[in-house]
């Protein structure tokens, strides 16, 4: 029997090979061929059955044969009533869950009438300054039956409180409220850069929310540990994997330090990955992530509940991979990425729209993106077989490789004293900036190719229609917030804000005082101002 090395030296060496570097998007060198010799570890220890430790092949026994992934399109723009309309359209088109995009002021903890909000109200998402806006956003949408994802981080405590108060008003008990709030502050300092206060108090608020949800809103996912933004900021697949898992470890450690039992809260932690354009690397990344998380939860934290070890995940196709040039090509990119997500075994997915490099997506573009998932689910047959690529020599070898490299990063971060410390010294931030710069250079040197950008370029004018946000929206929302602030009981608001400030110092869980403040019509900006005054303001160190 010829060994792989003999074959490479005797046969392959004489075969024709294009004069390029054969690497993944993340610059991992790949071999021409993988064989059984490349698959290390025993089947039981490394792969096992789906729904069983270490979950490499999937978190559920029957995977998509039992239930298809949730098709969850992220949406939000303008006023709450505009997004409410889009939500109801998506639900009527067969979408299963909602996913809310807030505008930048809301995401950064400013009201629409703040000076910092000028020009940004309702532009990149929906403007929500108070519980009134939240109520309008979910008008005629039964909170008890639809699971809602909210992408918000530094002001997440306030938005979750507002959602829970709206649930109360719809007559839905908190125990029945299901959904996810992103609330992953560590990756904010690493990548997305939405923050109010410094990392340590931000972590404390996250842990308060984990504790609160575990006790009071048990069907809610209080954190979505996110690699998406890390990748979009320019990280490699390995960095995305490593930094995200390290963030997760930091949250678990902090909650355990608080005195929570790991098996009480870990089952409600979920993940969120980017699905980039390197098809095999992304599938390997998702499989490696599951195996790493399962082993780390078991070995490091002594988790016993299998659900604590299951990495359940949302995924989104890579916004950064889309091009402004020849935007119709983006439909193809998104389809391939979505297919990788499904072959990687994700639990829910957002597919990007072809026009998103230009503006928020039009309704037609959103429809094509949703249909892409439906075609994969209903026509291609890939959902019929669990982990159909498992056992592929190449996939297994790549899974091992990205896992080994990510574990090496985690070792380094452990040495620094964990992710909070690593962030404070700018380690992941610098690693990502370095990778982003390296990739840009490779693109400009033609080492890496993006069709329509540095190869197969055609002269063109903006060829497709884009969505425009009416500037009058801002003025309407500003007036609405000002009116609400004039008409509410301002004494009651002041008292409630004082209670939030006291909890910042006493160490009392912040969520109950925040819920009460929101009930009394305190705003996102006002509660965030309490964080600013009590915890201090974080500013960008501007590391290059």
């Amino acid at each position, binding site marked *: 029997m010829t060994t792989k090395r003999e074959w490479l030296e005797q046969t392959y060496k004489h075969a024709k090979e294009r004069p390029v570097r054969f690497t993944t998007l993340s610059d991992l060198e790949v071999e021409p061929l993988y064989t059984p010799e490349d698959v290390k570890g025993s089947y039981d220890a490394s792969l096992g059955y789906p729904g069983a430790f270490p979950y490499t092949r999937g978190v559920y026994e029957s995977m998509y044969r039992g239930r298809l992934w949730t098709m969850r399109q992220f949406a939000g723009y303008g006023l709450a009533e505009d997004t409410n309309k889009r939500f109801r359209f998506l639900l009527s088109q067969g979408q299963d869950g909602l996913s809310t995009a807030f505008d*930048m*002021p809301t*995401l*950064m903890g*400013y009201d629409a009438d703040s*000076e*910092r*909000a*000028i*020009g*940004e109200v309702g*532009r*990149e998402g929906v403007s929500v300054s108070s519980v009134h806006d939240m109520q309008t956003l979910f008008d005629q949408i039964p909170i008890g039956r639809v699971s809602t994802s909210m992408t918000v981080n530094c002001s997440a405590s306030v938005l979750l409180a507002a959602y829970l108060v709206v649930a109360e008003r719809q007559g839905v008990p908190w125990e029945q409220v299901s959904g996810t709030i992103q609330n992953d502050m560590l990756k*904010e300092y690493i*990548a*997305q*850069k*939405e923050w109010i206060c410094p990392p340590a108090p931000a972590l404390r608020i996250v842990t308060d929310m984990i504790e609160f949800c575990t006790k009071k809103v048990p069907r809610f996912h209080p954190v979505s540990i996110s690699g998406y933004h890390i990748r*979009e*900021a*320019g990280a490699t697949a390995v960095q995305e994997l490593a930094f995200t898992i390290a963030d997760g470890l930091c949250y678990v450690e902090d909650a355990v330090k608080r005195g929570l039992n790991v098996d009480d809260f870990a089952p409600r932690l979920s993940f969120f990955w980017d699905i980039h354009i390197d098809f095999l690397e992304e599938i390997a990344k998702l499989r490696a992530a599951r195996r790493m998380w399962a082993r780390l939860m078991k070995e490091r934290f002594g988790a016993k509940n299998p659900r604590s070890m299951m990495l359940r995940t949302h995924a989104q196709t890579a916004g*950064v991979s889309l*091009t*402004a*040039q020849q935007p119709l090509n983006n439909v193809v990119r998104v389809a391939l990425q979505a297919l990788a997500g499904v072959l990687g075994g994700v639990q829910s997915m957002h597919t990007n729209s072809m026009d998103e*490099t*230009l*503006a928020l997506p039009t309704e037609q573009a959103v429809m094509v993106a949703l249909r892409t998932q439906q075609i994969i689910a209903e026509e291609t047959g890939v959902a019929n077989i669990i982990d159909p690529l498992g056992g592929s020599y190449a996939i297994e070898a790549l899974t091992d490789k990205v896992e080994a490299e990510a574990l090496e990063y985690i070792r380094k971060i452990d040495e620094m004293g964990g992710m909070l410390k690593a962030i404070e010294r700018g380690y992941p931030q610098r690693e990502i*900036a370095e990778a*982003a*710069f390296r990739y*840009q*250079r490779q*693109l*400009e040197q033609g080492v890496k190719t993006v069709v329509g*950008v540095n190869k197969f370029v055609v002269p063109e*004018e*903006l060829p497709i229609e*884009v969505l425009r*946000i009416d500037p009058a929206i801002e003025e309407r929302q500003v007036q609405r917030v000002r009116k609400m602030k004039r008409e509410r009981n301002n004494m009651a608001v002041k008292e409630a804000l004082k209670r939030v400030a006291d909890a910042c110092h006493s160490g009392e869980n912040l969520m109950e005082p925040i819920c009460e403040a929101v009930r009394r019509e305190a705003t996102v900006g006002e509660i965030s101002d309490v964080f600013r005054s009590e915890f201090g303001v974080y*500013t*960008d*160190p*501007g590391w*290059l």
Partner: protein
Amino acid sequence: MAEKRLRILVAKPGLDGHDRGAKIIARALRDGGFEVIYTGLHQTPEMIAEAAIQEDVDAVGLSILSGAHMTLFPEVIRLLKEKGADDVTIFGGGIIPDEDARKLAEMGVKAIFTPGASTEDIVKWVRENVHPRQ
């Protein structure tokens, strides 16, 4: 006589955290031989104009991906003028539709680079179009 190195302020106004492009441009300009000052994120137009004066820069490059470019560019231009620094060259980049780019050009923005622009082109443009302030 050694030529004075041009000083460029790379600024990131607005509330969004999309700093990948700004940081890449800052590094590329630095590698291209310019003095580069990077403001970091979440700057107001006042902070940017103030930094431009303090740092005595020859040009300001604004990176905007939030959709607020039609508010932020004019405000920075107005503030620089108010502070007597209307000879600072203003350029920028981000997700900016052609129609808006044309309007911004009329207001005095010297160049707008949109997705797909190469760092080489940007460095070349700065070299050819930014001149030392008197």
